[in-house]
């Protein structure tokens, strides 16, 4: 047994209202730069829908993740090592920018510079890729809230697996939101696809990261990830992905997407797992057994044998304590309501989901029934085969039983807690019907509905020697010779080449420059692009507005 710790997340889909706050704050924090305009480390999709990038779940087309070869051993679906090297010059499975969407801005200058005229001037959209006027025809959320439903939703690869006959009923009855980040898999196929070995899994906390100094832009990770959560920065020529906000979680703070989630639906904690058994578990023959196989790899943090092995592996005591208090472990094992996204990709994803019960309740209430009565709910869960079929395609490789069991538990919690809230006698038979006790249901309710901050996020701090980093502050401007030319950092070999300046130093200088400098903010090197986050309204940086062929005066 080789015990390793893994930071994991669970999202409670019942509470997601599709507000995209997580996406926006993540973008502000991580991908608000030239080259990553189209990149959303966190995105929220409406299901049924095509997702982002379009139809990424169609692995017959994109060949992401793993599959079993004829001898029952794991192999990358896109091909083995030799095939990868031979297709390195032009990756045939690489999504184009149009598969995500072509990012754009607006011709705002028209609003100010247009001559007096009868009609109100309009700001036309311009592509951020070509700089030319463009027609917006797709984006990361084009089919939000089932927009364009009858036309677009049938292309949903998950929906196509559920039978055709019930499709229309389903669309009328059922819709929910699916927020997605990188899964930080136990068996990451992106890292396994990287020819340079630049993508690595951190041995302390299992976060999967791209070493920007070792990435050579071979683009195989983009193909390898079945969730399409590794992105290609088309300006720097390097892969970028969700970092699980490692600078935050290292000091015990939740990720930006979790912190800003208005529905408080995200849970972060650690899981102990047996790294030696990952490959074996990912290789079970039947797709439907992958869920149980993955659960069997995760270890019980209360088991003395596990604790001993973890200590031997060098996992610190406060991490073991955090593993025992982990909301993730509770939701997966104790309450048994969390399920992984697409276990059939065999990557052992570590962002799990509590499937939504609300649509079932809505159907019941909409038809005049009591949507919180246990009997009604249990009946409806069994009757509404379509939503369950769809959820099963997402979370259990098509096996409806685990999904049904989870929904029944959520329904039981609703009914049981309603009786308590109405001052009635608790009905233990409701809890017993789903294999729980009344106290268990109340504990689950506390974690899911009350969702206190320090119960949602149990994040042990990294044991890091930070003295050297604090020196950054002491060094001040005099010693930080790395810094030249400002945040654009244009080295001699194109954008952002050269040594990276420490973030604190860069911010310090940029701020000082802006406050004391006589020059207006100059982003000339961005060539038609400007980062509005860093623009403080002083002047008009080059590239904020198109030049219209006019020579600059003065």
């Amino acid at each position: 047994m080789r015990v390793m710790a893994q930071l994991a997340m669970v999202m409670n889909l019942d509470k997601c209202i599709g507000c995209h706050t997580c996406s926006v704050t993540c973008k502000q924090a991580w991908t608000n730069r030239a080259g990553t305009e189209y990149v959303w480390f966190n995105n929220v999709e409406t299901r049924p829908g095509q997702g982002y990038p379009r139809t990424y779940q169609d692995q017959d087309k994109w060949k992401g993740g793993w599959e079993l070869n004829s001898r029952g051993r794991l192999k990358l679906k896109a091909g083995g090592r030799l095939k990868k090297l031979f297709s390195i010059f032009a990756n045939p499975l690489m999504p184009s920018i149009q598969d995500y969407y072509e990012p754009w801005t607006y011709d705002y200058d028209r609003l100010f510079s247009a001559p007096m005229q009868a009609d109100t001037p309009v700001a036309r959209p311009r592509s951020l890729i070509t700089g030319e006027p463009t027609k917006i025809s797709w984006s990361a959320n084009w089919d939000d809230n089932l927009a364009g439903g009858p036309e677009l939703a049938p292309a949903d690869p998950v929906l196509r697996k559920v039978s055709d006959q019930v499709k229309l009923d389903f669309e009328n009855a059922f819709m929910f939101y699916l927020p997605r980040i990188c899964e930080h898999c136990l068996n990451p196929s992106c890292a396994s696809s990287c020819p340079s070995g630049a993508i690595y899994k951190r041995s302390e906390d299992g976060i999967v990261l791209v070493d920007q100094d070792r990435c050579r832009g071979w683009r195989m990770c983009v193909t390898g990830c079945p969730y399409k959560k590794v992105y290609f920065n088309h300006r720097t020529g390097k892969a970028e992905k969700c970092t699980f906000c490692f600078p935050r979680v290292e000091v015990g703070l939740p990720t930006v997407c979790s912190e800003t989630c208005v529905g408080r639906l995200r849970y972060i904690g650690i899981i102990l797992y047996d790294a030696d058994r990952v490959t074996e578990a990912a290789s079970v023959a039947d797709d439907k057994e992958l869920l149980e196989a993955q659960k069997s790899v995760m270890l019980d943090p209360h088991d003395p044998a596990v604790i001993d092995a973890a200590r031997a592996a060098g996992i610190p005591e406060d991490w073991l304590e955090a593993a025992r208090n982990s909301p993730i472990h509770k939701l997966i094992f104790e309450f048994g309501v969390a399920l992984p996204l697409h276990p059939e990709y065999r990557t052992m994803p570590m962002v799990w989901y509590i499937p939504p019960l609300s649509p079932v309740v809505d159907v019941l209430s909409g038809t005049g029934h009591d949507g919180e009565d246990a009997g009604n709910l249990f009946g409806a869960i069994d009757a509404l085969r379509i939503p369950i079929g769809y959820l099963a395609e997402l979370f259990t490789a098509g096996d409806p039983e685990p999904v049904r069991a989870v929904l029944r538990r959520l329904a039981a919690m609703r009914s049981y807690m309603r009786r308590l809230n109405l001052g009635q006698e608790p009905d233990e038979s409701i809890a017993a019907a789903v294999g729980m006790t009344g106290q268990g249901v109340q504990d689950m309710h506390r974690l899911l509905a009350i969702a206190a901050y320090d119960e949602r996020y149990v994040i042990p701090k990294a044991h890091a020697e930070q003295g050297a980093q604090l020196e950054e502050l002491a060094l001040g401007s005099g010693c930080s010779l790395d810094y030249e030319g400002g945040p654009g950092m244009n080295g001699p070999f194109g954008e952002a080449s050269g040594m990276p300046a420490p973030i604190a130093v860069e911010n310090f200088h940029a701020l000082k420059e802006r406050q004391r400098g006589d020059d207006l903010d100059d982003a000339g090197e961005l060539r038609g692009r400007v980062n509005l986050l860093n623009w403080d309204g002083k002047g008009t940086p080059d590239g904020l507005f198109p030049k219209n062929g006019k020579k600059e005066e003065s």
Partner: protein
Amino acid sequence: MNALDVVLWVVAPYVALTVFVLGHVWRYRYDKFGWTTRSSQMYESRLLRIGSPLFHFGILVVLLGHIGGLVIPKSWTEAAGVSEHAYHVVAVVLGTIAGVATLGGLAILIYRRRTVGPVFTATTRNDKLMYAVLAVAIVLGLAATVMANIVGGGYDYRTTISPWFRSIFYFQPDPALMAGAPLLFRLHALSALLLFAIWPFTRLVHMLTAPVGYLTRPYVVYRSRDEQPTGSRAPRRGWEPSR
């Protein structure tokens, strides 16, 4: 043998090779982040899927051919029983096919770079210079082969150019060998020297990190967060050394 020959065939090669080696060392230390293929496949895939493999596989065969012709002495191949004629036929046929594939691929790639808007926008001045030098070197090399063998009666570079090439590496350069070679071969060699000299400062550096290690390493890479701080090097210490 005059002074110009010494400059061209002794001084220039050593300068180019020194710049090549030290340039790469310097670039690797200074600019790991900029060390990338800077792929433009995201913008355009249709032309790339024809041009890029054509060029890259072609240039790999060309590279192997140059190793066979320049590095391996004629006496070795003859000792192995390969006659001059047999070598020559194989070299000319393979070389011409690979050369044409390379040049065709390069033509497609340059056409794509100029005509596809986003790709052209992402092209730096550095890239344009590199493309020019690379194209000149390839055209001259192909022209030398074609002119010598198809128009002329063939030229045995393994008695002049190859010994000169090897003489550079054992530090007894003999410019006289090169001075007598046909003009096109000499121009090709000079353009190659220029290419080597600018190599470390262009995107061509990606060739030196061709990911052959992928064939043997384990699939999943684990790395400790302490092993290397984020970013390319350790932070500076914040105190003066005490003496």
